[in-house]
């Protein structure tokens, strides 16, 4: 029995991590809804204490039937202890005794009653910039540590900790305005920001910029969970939220097929559709149908592209014309060179590699594009389609010089080795 050297990230561990994250998120949301949005730090501290206690006790006594209630009880006692110790009698009276009862008007039709959605909206407060919103959500709602967030942003643990405390200080300064749940009007106004933050979170998990893993599955899974919550919540449900949830379902459905056993990426063309998660694809199609009611957003269009791949029975059955039409819409909405790069790859696959290459080359005037590895990878792939081997190899080499995540680097090296 040599399982003491067992790998840390086995399936049980992943389920456990997800369970802990889920319970912690719910717990903090429940605490913030009782203590007020200006007491996020207190809520986090006592939630952490409760989680530690739980993980110390549960291995012996088993997971209680209602872990959430167990945690909330422990956290509440911690909060009372702490406030007493600090002799903050005034706050003690007001915050704990006054506000401990479940949030006052859970059935108020003007206020969202889901504490987790409220917490998400709080972390995406307009007074914070986007990076702060994102790392605060990752920390408070999803329970990632400063070190984990640092890995994600290629920055140090202490730098992230500093930014987190700055963000929380700002929330604290906003004080009493955060003490009551947001009205649906505020929720609507903030929804676009929240969706953007969830989208960015998924992107960070889906394609880590550098480092050892191809997919930070835990981060992407959390983003998908938030997207589903937003789509299903009465206050935040909207065509855009449904479109985002659809997009993330489609992308997540390919996780298992996207990574080879050795960690290297598997391109869409070479993926085994048997490995796609059909349940997630069905969820995605369902969200996509319900997203059709309103204004077209980039999430709609991106979900459209992803759906073309998801419903094609095989690579040669993909409806490239539909893909290109979606890309044209996306270009119109975003005017982004990254979109233009992806569009030209689709164009090449649709049977017009020459045209695709010309379009791609016209982007290189932008210096940032010229330093962007995916641009050179796209170029290399298209040249490879055209059997222009020497030029293709040169582009792979340039891509490697630009730098990307370790598994993609390995993939590029393999391409170079096999492309002779």
């Amino acid at each position, binding site marked *: *029995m040599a399982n003491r050297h067992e790998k840390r990230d086995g399936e*049980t561990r992943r389920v*456990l*991590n997800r369970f802990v994250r889920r319970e912690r998120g719910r717990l903090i949301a429940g605490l913030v809804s009782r203590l007020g949005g200006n007491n996020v730090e207190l809520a986090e501290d006592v939630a952490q204490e409760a989680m530690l206690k739980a*993980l*110390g006790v*549960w*291995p*012996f*006594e088993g997971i209680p039937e209602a872990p959430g209630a167990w945690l909330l009880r422990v956290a509440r006692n911690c909060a009372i202890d702490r406030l007493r110790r600090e002799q903050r009698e005034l706050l003690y009276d007001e915050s704990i005794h006054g506000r401990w009862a479940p949030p006052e008007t859970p059935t108020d039709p003007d206020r969202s009653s889901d504490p987790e959605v409220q917490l998400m909206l709080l972390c995406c407060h307009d007074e914070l910039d986007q990076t702060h919103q994102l790392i605060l959500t990752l920390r408070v709602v999803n329970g990632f540590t400063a070190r984990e967030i640092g890995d994600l942003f290629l920055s140090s643990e202490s730098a992230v900790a500093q930014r987190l405390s700055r963000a929380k200080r700002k929330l604290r300064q906003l004080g009493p305005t955060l003490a009551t749940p947001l009205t649906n009007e505020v929720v609507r106004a903030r929804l676009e920001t929240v969706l953007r933050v969830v989208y960015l979170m998924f992107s960070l998990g889906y394609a880590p910029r550098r480092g050892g893993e191809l997919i930070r599955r835990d981060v992407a899974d959390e983003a998908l969970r938030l997207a589903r919550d937003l789509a299903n919540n009465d206050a935040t449900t909207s065509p855009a939220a449904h479109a985002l949830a659809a997009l993330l379902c489609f992308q997540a459905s390919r996780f298992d097929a996207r990574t080879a056993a050795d960690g290297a990426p598997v391109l869409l063309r070479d993926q085994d559709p048997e490995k796609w998660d059909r349940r997630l694809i069905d969820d995605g199609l369902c969200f996509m149908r319900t997203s059709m009611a309103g204004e077209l957003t980039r999430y709609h269009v991106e979900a459209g592209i992803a759906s073309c791949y998801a419903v094609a029975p095989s690579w040669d059955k993909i409806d490239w014309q539909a893909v290109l039409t979606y890309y044209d819409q996306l270009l119109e909405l975003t005017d982004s060179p990254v979109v233009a790069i992806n569009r030209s790859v689709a164009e090449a696959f649709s049977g017009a590699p020459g045209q695709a290459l010309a379009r791609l080359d016209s982007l290189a005037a932008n210096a940032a594009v010229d330093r962007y590895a995916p641009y050179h990878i796209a170029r290399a792939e298209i040249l490879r389609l055209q059997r222009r081997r020497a030029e293709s190899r040169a582009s792979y080499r340039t891509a490697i010089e630009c730098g990307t995540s370790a598994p993609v680097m390995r993939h590029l090296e393999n391409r170079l080795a096999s492309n002779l």
Partner: protein
Amino acid sequence: MSKFAFLLNHAPDRYSSLSEDSAMAIFKDYMEWMQGAAKSGVCDGGYKLSEGPGKIVSSKGGGFTVHESPFAELTEVLGGIMVVNAPDFDAAIEIAKAHPHLVHNQSIEIRQLDGE
């Protein structure tokens, strides 16, 4: 099938100076083990003891004295008890070898439960 008590000892200050991250990581190892062991019927659960000193009650000349246990001065304190099902002592030892307690602490004392 017999029942064995795993007495999980640790140094008194083992968990007091750990960062929350490291403590969480360790506790997750225990949780992971427990979930597997509960599913397979190896472990019946047990009891976790609170950190910090307890009280010692002694009888003396018809009366009682109560004093605090010398928790901090001990080299090892009992952290918790788990009840494990195994056909015999050797099998119980093998189960103990795979327990994360031996990764994060030094030893597990195994005692057979009488009459089980």
